[in-house]
């Protein structure tokens, strides 16, 4: 059963639990994938997906339908992922200081990024590792725009609604992200060749 956003909104007013189950059945895959592409770990993505749907459940009655249901859920997912990544960065900083003088002769992408993405098959793992390693080095706004547009396949308009910005700003974020990714991947190429 496929409902339009207005029907979901009406269902949420009449019977929030049924509306919630509808969201779980129809949007869990979408949210799991975006969490996975942002945090790059299966278990973390599952925990985050649960957090996103818990937040959606508690605020379902306050959802006024000003945006699309998918946009609303994407926004929650993005905020939760940001919180998670910030907490992870803090943990890393307060943890054991890792050596900054890495031996470049031993350098491989899997040494700089550790990911567990079930959507990447083994033969593509190295290629994905280079890509994710480069993506992780982008500023958060550029990384989010790139993930939503390129990996989730959303239009610039949808990305602008989720990031609460304008379409030209998204275009600019994408342009800068591509340029920076090309630079980083170029560096990786040189290191790989050495």
């Amino acid at each position, binding site marked *: 059963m496929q409902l339009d956003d207005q029907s979901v909104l009406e269902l949420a007013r009449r019977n929030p639990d049924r509306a919630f*189950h509808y969201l*779980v059945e129809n949007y*869990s895959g979408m949210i799991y994938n975006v969490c996975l592409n942002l945090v790059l770990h299966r278990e973390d993505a599952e925990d985050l997906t649960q957090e996103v749907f818990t937040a959606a*459940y508690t605020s379902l*009655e306050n959802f006024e339908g000003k945006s699309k249901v998918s946009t609303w859920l994407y926004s929650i997912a993005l905020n939760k992922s940001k919180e998670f990544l910030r907490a992870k960065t803090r943990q890393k900083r307060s943890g054991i200081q890792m050596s900054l003088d890495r031996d470049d002769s031993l350098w491989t992408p899997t040494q700089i990024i550790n990911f567990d993405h079930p959507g*990447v098959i083994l033969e593509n793992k190295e290629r994905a590792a280079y*890509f994710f390693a480069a993506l992780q080095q982008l500023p958060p706004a550029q990384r989010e725009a790139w993930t939503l547009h390129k*990996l989730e396949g959303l239009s610039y308009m949808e990305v602008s609604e989720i990031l609460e910005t304008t379409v030209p700003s998204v275009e600019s974020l994408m342009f800068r992200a591509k340029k920076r990714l090309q630079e980083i991947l*170029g560096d990786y*190429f040189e290191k790989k060749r050495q």
Partner: protein
Amino acid sequence: MSNTTDMNKREDWIERHLESTEFVHPVEASDALMLRLRSIPVQMGRKVYLVPKRAIWSLVAGLAVLITVNLIALSNYERAQEVHEAGRASDTYFSYMKQL
């Protein structure tokens, strides 16, 4: 010539690694995750639906109207009683005078 080939190789390699949709595929949520998601309402322990805000405001407005109407009616009644009392006193006085 060699430099151009190297540059092309580099560009190709970069472009190949930017085509993320070729090597990152969407996945379905596992059954275990679906189970966790479906059980959220039970875990949250919310059995009773919350009263919608609109209903609460309607109730408050209804109560306010009821109280206002009652206050107006009470003040009108008191005023009518005073007029009635005053009228009765003057009637008594004039009927007494008539008797005299």
